[in-house]
Every structure is written in C-alpha cells, then in structure tokens.
C-alpha cells in the first residue's frame, strides 16, 4: 500500500522555536507538496518540490522554508514559529501534475504554537 508518512501527528512548540515537519513517501514520486489547512479555509499550498533540491513557492510561503535532499523526503521548516502558524499541515506526493487523482496525502501534523 502506497504511503506518505508524516513524522508527528501532534506537535506543540513555543513561539520563536525552529520547527521541522518531516514527510516521507515510498512511491518514488518526483513531486511533493506541503499544504496548510485551517478551519473555514480550503487547503493552501506552502511549497512544492518537483525534484531533489528543486522547489517552488506556493501561495503562502512567508515564514516557511523547505528542504529536499533525498527524493523520498520533504521537510517543512518554520524558521521562527509564531502563533499564527498554528494549523494542520498536510504533505502530499504525486507522480503526475496533470491530475489530482494521483496525489497521495499524509494524515497531517497538527501544530500548536504557544
């Protein structure tokens, strides 16, 4: 069964901390994504990576950075966590950008910044 695994289900961090959210996929997909999901809002794309060491900014990249040193792993980094980054973070991978049907999502990391 194909999988996207996010390292933490729940995370509580303090304001100003550097936070790493990890995502690993076992499908050899080129494309990986980080989204943010807030109540009352749809998914919003933070960053997209189409290959190792390659990335593109999404709709809301401010306050975030990413790292993709290996094909299977895509990390989201909050350089200095703030309370407005409290949210559900979802990672996804896909081999095909032409269709959403090929996206596989992780179960999400619920991050609380206090």
């Amino acid at each position, binding site marked *: 069964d194909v999988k*996207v695994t996010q390292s933490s289900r729940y995370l509580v961090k303090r304001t100003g901390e550097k936070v790493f959210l990890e995502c690993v996929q076992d499908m050899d997909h080129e*494309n990986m*994504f980080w989204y943010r999901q807030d109540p*009352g*809002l*749809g*998914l*919003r*794309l933070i960053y*997209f990576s189409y290959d190792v060491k390659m990335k593109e900014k999404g709709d809301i990249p401010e306050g975030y950075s990413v790292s993709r040193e290996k094909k299977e792993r895509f990390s989201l980094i909050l350089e200095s966590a703030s309370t407005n980054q409290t949210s559900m973070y*979802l990672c*996804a991978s*896909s081999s095909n*950008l*032409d*269709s*959403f*049907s090929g*996206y596989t*999502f*992780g*179960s*999400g990391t619920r991050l609380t910044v206090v």
Partner: protein
Amino acid sequence: GESVGLHLPTLSVQEGDNSIINCAYSNSASDYFIWYKQESGKGPQFIIDIRSNMDKRQGQRVTVLLNKTVKHLSLQIAATQPGDSAVYFCAAGPGTYKYIFGTGTRLKVLA
C-alpha cells in the same frame, strides 16, 4: 482574487437517499475541477475530477456536473451510506498543481 466556495457548511441526508453538494468558482479560465473528501483524522482522498471540455462525468456511485456558464460544480452521491460521512471539498485550477480549494461541506448521513 480567485475563489472557490461550497454552498452549505453542513448537509444532512437520510441513509439510502441521494446527496448533492454544490460548489461555485470564480475564475472562468479554470480548466480542471476536482472533488475530494476528508474523514476525521485522515488526509484528503480523491473522489472524481472533470475537465472543462466535459459537463458530466460518472464514477462509482458519484457523478460530477459542471456548468461553465454559471461557474457551478456539483457532486452527486447515489444511495448515500454511513461510510460517506466526511467533509467534501471542491477545487478548481488550470490543470497543473495550482489549485484553488474550497472550504468544505460536512456530509452527515442519518440512519
């Protein structure tokens, strides 16, 4: 800016009835539309998609209708089952990864 919105935050239907979830989008240049669902504690799960050169597409127990004139998208679920309970989302985009996602409709199936 561009927007995608679902008409109702919550929809309750009797088990065995048909469900219809509606969605409106603002960008007439959108070329690709999707429906997905999300169950509590899980990631999004793709249901069905449709491209702008079609106005109807059917899957297993689901049908998506696209009306480009009024920029409206609907998802019909036949013979709704308790396992269909979830939050349903629509999204629109140009056909690449740049989607605009809607806010979601929670479908409650009543026994």
